[in-house]
């Protein structure tokens, strides 16, 4: 099936999972795996950085998982942390096993708005996975953007997802990469401290910059506050939100946050849009 015909089909039947097969499986951290998928009909899923799919572990259930591969080409890649029944079943899949795919869903990272600006990516833990497609796009079309910086915080050095790739980005001259961990044994000679401590060391023009943040909600809140303090406008700070999802098309209300549905209106929102709701406990 052609890629365009497949996109039309996915759009027309958004609740019907398409069958794909696992073609590659890599362990990234002690509890996260990356899967390379190939759709059974041979089509390629066209998606924007920051969008997500609903992945089905057949017989177990479905979970929202961001695409973590390169939107310009290559296999459909997802990076999944085993936290519960569905994610555990997905990460246990072996090459050749079938998997269900619905998507892509949601509004992704503001790539067009970022053009001509300094772009600051701040990732915490597995939050680097949804940001990686944006980074591929930034590096692939490097001349369109100003200074590009990735600030990445992980729990320990062993929890650094895409470690080899992070090292290769650090070696490039056209992107600044700074990594910190929360705790480390004494052999680690990198930074130790929370990810917000990297912000004061980063160089950007806050009046002409755009930030994309992804990680645990508390971390995103603190990063957004630190960026506002550095002079970022609240509408120049974008966050990717997570809530339990069922339909992923704005029908069931499972992912409601205030007046918005995260699956349909997000998962990427500006801090200006979210600030009020982030402050409400248990929302």
């Amino acid at each position: 099936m052609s890629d365009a015909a497949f996109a039309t089909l996915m759009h027309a039947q958004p609740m019907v999972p398409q069958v794909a097969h696992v073609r590659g499986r890599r362990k990234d951290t002690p509890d996260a795996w990356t899967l390379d998928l190939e759709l059974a009909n041979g089509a390629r899923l066209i998606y924007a950085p920051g969008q997500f799919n609903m992945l089905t572990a057949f017989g177990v259930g479905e979970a929202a998982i961001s695409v973590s591969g390169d939107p310009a080409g290559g296999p459909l890649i997802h990076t999944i942390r085993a936290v519960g029944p569905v994610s555990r079943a997905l990460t246990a899949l072996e090459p050749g096993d079938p998997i269900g795919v619905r998507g892509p869903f949601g509004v992704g990272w503001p790539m067009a708005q970022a053009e001509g600006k300094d772009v600051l990516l701040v990732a915490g833990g597995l939050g680097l996975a949804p940001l990686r497609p944006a980074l591929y796009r930034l590096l692939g079309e490097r001349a369109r953007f100003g200074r590009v910086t990735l600030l990445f915080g992980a729990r320990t050095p062993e929890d650094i997802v895409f470690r080899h790739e992070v090292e290769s980005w650090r070696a490039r001259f056209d992107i600044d990469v700074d990594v910190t961990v929360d705790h480390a044994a004494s052999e680690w000679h990198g930074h130790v401290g929370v990810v917000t401590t990297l912000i004061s060391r980063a160089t950007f023009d806050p009046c002409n910059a755009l930030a994309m943040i992804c990680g645990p909600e508390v971390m995103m809140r603190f990063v957004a506050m630190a960026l506002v303090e550095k002079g970022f406008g609240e509408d120049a700070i974008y966050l990717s939100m997570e809530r339990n999802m069922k339909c992923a098309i704005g029908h069931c209300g499972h992912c409601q946050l205030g007046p918005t549905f995260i699956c349909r209106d997000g998962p990427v929102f500006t801090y200006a849009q979210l600030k009020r709701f982030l402050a409400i406990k248990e929302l």
Partner: protein
Amino acid sequence: MENLERILAAHPFFAGLDGEFCTLACGCAKNARFDAGQFICHEGDSADQFFLVREGRVALQVSAPGRGASTFLTLGPGEVFGVNWLVPPYRWTYDAKAIAPTRAISMDAACLRNKCEANHSLGYDVMKRLMPVLVERLHTARVQMLDLYGARG
């Protein structure tokens, strides 16, 4: 001394310090240099110095039996460590180790304490500079304790 005074005034911790205070503080300061891997102080030692990092990187570590040393914070240019100089019984509560060739300004703790005691305006100024560092460290330690990226991340 003049040179050291300039270096001290240029360090973010003392940025904007009144000229007279700067001369007073400078009387307690000297340059320090550490090789990568060199311990600067050990937990339990007398906290007789307070350091302003100019270059390099310093790891603050605690050791637990059977687990070796863990680093809980690294500090770089523009940052300070050794705040125990101000709080009795003036003992280091962690090990500090240079993990890159490091240059710092070392402040003699007893000297600085005496000057702050004798000149409360200087003391209050120094305190206003230390408090934000302590509040920031407390905040980041709290966030670290939440273990955000852990199982319930």
